[in-house]
């Protein structure tokens, strides 16, 4: 069989094959849109919720041997809505009037914290080699072939049936009950909804329970498609769902449904035909290998960048917001001169003591950790610029850092270029990419900007890294992305001490640059704009320029930091250092510890590298207690608790955008100020 008939049959098969995954994408997209519509939360923690249900199902059925139906009920219909209710009650109910961006950061913190929290609480670890089963008996071995072109297995049929049932249920809910209308009303103004006689709290709790059930169901249904249960896979799943949801501008449920199905079909059809065509046209081959896994991200990015109408609508503001008290003022920045002197002296003393301990006493391991801390601080200063100063959430800082790393790898590998020069070049390349990226993306602003940068990060991860002129291609597979240490005249930075000095020098220089930027015109413009899209629109050209500069500078800093990190490890180690999901943690930790100040970035760098060995493993306590044998049995605490801790701290972003530690410091500074002033008052 050939020609047109064969073509149509293949097309039909592709569509059928794409329907089950498309149905699950649609399910997630529906839940995602439901959350966004009913609480204004861009819920990136959706993947974490899906993961928890999938893991619970796996644990109950495969490990405990529960029957499938019981495992399904507990994981998707009890645990999932329960998580939704808890999140609503403890967190999002109190954030109703917060901006969409701060809610996004909160969700991001949750997406980092929740999976680990579950893993630790349920003592769950992914068991390699145990097949993850679907929800039907003999789900993957009994087939049905209704059209004679594609054989559906039972699990696939279940996916489609569940998605269909969920869609009908949702449609009925919105069509025949007032609860749909009430849910829309609550997002806009919970108070006005209450004045209509509707219990706003209960309405949004219901919405959260419902959408979380969707997440849980989708997680259980999609799990068999993965080889093992890893929470990051589920995060990727959410980005796919966002692509589907973006088709309906995040608010239309029917369009999100179509978007999900369409994405499933598109991917399947693409996979059917591309290999065939690339057999005839060899130039298509790299595209086939690289593009397929990244299709959803390409679609998402294209929608965001090309669709002019998206991101245009403003959040409707609550007409009764006047009922809220004004937000509490940030604790005072002005310090008593004595206090300033004291903190400066203390800072210098602290650095001197720690520095000399590290310099004279530290072994190889601690030298390595401290250097990592310093380099991470450099990278985190890029977050200080884009998030702390410009108030924008960029989720592709890892990509910029990777660009720096790959640049020195390529330059040293191919042209034998000096690595220090290559690092500067890498910063330049990252800046150029950042500026280029900012042109289409900055128009979006707010939540959309965050998601576009995330799509870019995933695109880079899935496509660009595989090109030999970026990630080294097959050479990298054989020899790794090796990077030498710099050699400047007589100084060989292969010595760890010398390299630490280099890192500290870079950190100081970058800090000065950031401070200069903050005090200059760009910084002032950005401060005036922070968080206010309306103000941005009214200031116009200079606002746009300030933001592009911020984006480019931030990218350059990340690129430089990435280059340093690669030199330090003498390898780019792309996926452990710079992978898109790993880099999310960067934002979380910086936001948790203080995104507005240079100090905050340094703290975050130290926390990233040193928190686990020093605190969790108990080394600090052991040192204080003079000996390991006195350590309480609690230690060593598993390292993943840091994800939980910093994720939970980032949740406070909505209330304390300056960061929790920064907030605490400002408060105690204010207290000491008052005390000093009172003492002076008494003296005079």
């Amino acid at each position, binding site marked *: 069989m050939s020609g047109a008939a064969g073509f149509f049959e293949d097309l039909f098969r592709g569509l059928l094959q794409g329907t089950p995954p498309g149905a699950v994408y649609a399910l997630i997209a529906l839940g995602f849109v439901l959350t966004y519509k009913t609480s204004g939360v861009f819920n990136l923690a959706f993947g974490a919720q899906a993961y928890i249900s999938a893991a619970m199902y796996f644990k109950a059925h495969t490990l405990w041997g529960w029957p499938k139906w019981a495992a399904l009920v507990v994981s998707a219909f009890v645990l999932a809505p329960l998580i939704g209710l808890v999140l609503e009650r403890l967190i999002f109910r109190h954030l109703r009037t917060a901006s969409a961006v701060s809610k996004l950061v909160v969700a991001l913190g949750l997406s980092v914290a929740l999976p680990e929290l579950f893993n630790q609480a349920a003592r769950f670890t992914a068991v390699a080699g145990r097949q993850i089963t679907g929800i039907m008996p003999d789900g993957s071995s009994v087939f049905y072939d209704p059209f004679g072109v594609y054989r559906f297995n039972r699990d696939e049929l279940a996916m489609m049936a569940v998605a269909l049932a969920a869609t009908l249920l949702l449609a009925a809910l919105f069509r025949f009950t007032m609860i749909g*209308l009430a849910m829309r009303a609550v997002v806009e103004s919970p108070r006005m909804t*209450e*004045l*209509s006689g509707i219990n706003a709290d209960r309405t949004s709790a219901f919405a959260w329970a419902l959408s979380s059930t969707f997440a849980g169901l989708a997680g259980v249904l999609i799990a068999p498609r993965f080889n093992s249960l890893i929470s990051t896979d589920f995060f990727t799943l959410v980005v796919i769902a966002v692509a589907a949801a973006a088709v309906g501008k995040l608010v239309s449920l029917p369009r999100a449904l179509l978007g999900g199905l369409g994405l499933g079909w598109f991917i399947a059809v693409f996979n059917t035909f591309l290999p065939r065509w690339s057999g005839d046209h060899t130039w298509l081959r790299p595209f086939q290998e690289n593009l397929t896994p990244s299709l959803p991200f390409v679609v998402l990015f294209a929608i965001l960048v090309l669709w002019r109408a998206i991101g245009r609508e403003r959040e409707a503001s609550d*007409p*009764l917001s006047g009922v809220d008290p004004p937000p509490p003022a940030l604790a005072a920045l002005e310090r008593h001169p004595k206090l300033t002197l004291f903190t400066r002296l203390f800072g210098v003393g602290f650095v001197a003591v720690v520095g000399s301990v590290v310099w004279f006493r530290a072994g190889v391991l601690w030298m390595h950790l401290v250097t990592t801390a310093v380099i991470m601080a450099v990278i985190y200063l890029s977050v200080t610029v884009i998030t702390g100063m410009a108030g924008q959430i960029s989720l592709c800082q890892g990509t910029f850092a990777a660009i720096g790393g790959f640049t020195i790898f390529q330059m040293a590998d191919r042209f034998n270029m000096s690595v220090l020069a290559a690092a500067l070049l890498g910063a330049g390349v990252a800046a150029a990419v950042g500026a280029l990226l900012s042109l289409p993306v900055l128009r979006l602003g707010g939540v959309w900007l965050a998601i576009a940068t995330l799509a870019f990060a995933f695109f880079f991860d899935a496509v660009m890294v595989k090109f030999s002129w970026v990630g080294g291609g097959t050479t990298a597979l054989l020899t790794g992305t090796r990077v030498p240490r710099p050699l400047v005249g007589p100084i060989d930075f292969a010595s760890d001490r010398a390299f630490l000095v280099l890192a500290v020098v870079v950190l100081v220089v970058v800090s000065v640059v950031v401070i200069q930027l903050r005090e200059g015109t760009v910084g002032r413009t950005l401060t005036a704009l922070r968080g206010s899209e309306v103000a941005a629109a009214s200031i116009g050209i200079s606002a746009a320029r300030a933001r592009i500069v911020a984006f480019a500078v931030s990218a350059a800093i990340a690129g430089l930091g990435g280059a340093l990190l690669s030199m330090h490890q003498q390898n780019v180690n792309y996926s452990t250092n710079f992978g898109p999901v790993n880099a999310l943690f960067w934002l979380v930790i910086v936001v948790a510890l203080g995104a507005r100040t240079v100090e905050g970035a340094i703290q975050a760098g130290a926390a990233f590298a040193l928190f686990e060995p020093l605190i969790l493993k108990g080394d600090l306590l052991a040192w204080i207690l003079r000996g390991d044998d006195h350590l309480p049995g609690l230690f060593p605490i598993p390292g993943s608790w840091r994800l939980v801790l910093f994720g939970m701290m980032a949740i406070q972003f909505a209330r304390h955008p300056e960061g929790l530690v920064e907030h605490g410091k400002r408060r105690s500074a204010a207290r000491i100020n008052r005390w000093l002033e009172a003492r002076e008052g008494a003296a005079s």
Partner: protein
Amino acid sequence: MTPILELRDVEAGYGPFRALFGVSLAVEAAEAVALVGANGAGKTTLARVASGLVAPSAGTVLVDGEEIGSGRPSAWRFVRAGVAHAPEGRSVFASLTVEENLALSFHRAFGRAGLAGALDRAYELFPRLGERRTQVAGTLSGGEQRMLSLARVLVESPRLLIADELSLGLAPMIVDQVFETLGRIRAAGTALLIVEQQVGHALELCDRAAVMEHGLITWQGPSNEAGAVLESRLFETGAAR
């Protein structure tokens, strides 16, 4: 007889800021009370406390002699107990259509069966709304938005209606019409608590008046004496400052 609404020594504010300093006021069934006072005196805050939007920091708010909710502001309980509130300023759901705005309240009040009838009554009251029933409320003119938020409370004929600056932004003819409607629902047995800058209109409609100054009710009495009191008070406070 227990009053529908009673505030006893209510204090309230916003965060650290105090707006009410121990206010007591009662509204009996089928009574109409006008609340007057200078800008920033705390009238809107009092109205918000009386409808459960703002929780008092001290004192009690009683509906039919009973405390409603506990601590947390829960306006919906007040609404279900028959206390409706038309808040100050723009108070519509901008992203919902005119009809959806109305349906949200009416469905709860009259059920699915009574919904259509209630919508008809609203459109009868304000024909302009009927013409624009599928328009998104955010794009209505300022006056039309006022009408919409009024239609919501007027049609329901609650037991007590708290109306804050009803006439603001409406054309004089519509203002007359609104006060006429208020008179009608009053005759039908709804008690009124009216906050107005157009003191003349308000005093004419109401039988009792309360004067607010700096977060306190400084005078209460029959509305026909209020005019004189108000003049001397405003003169005094004006002279004092």
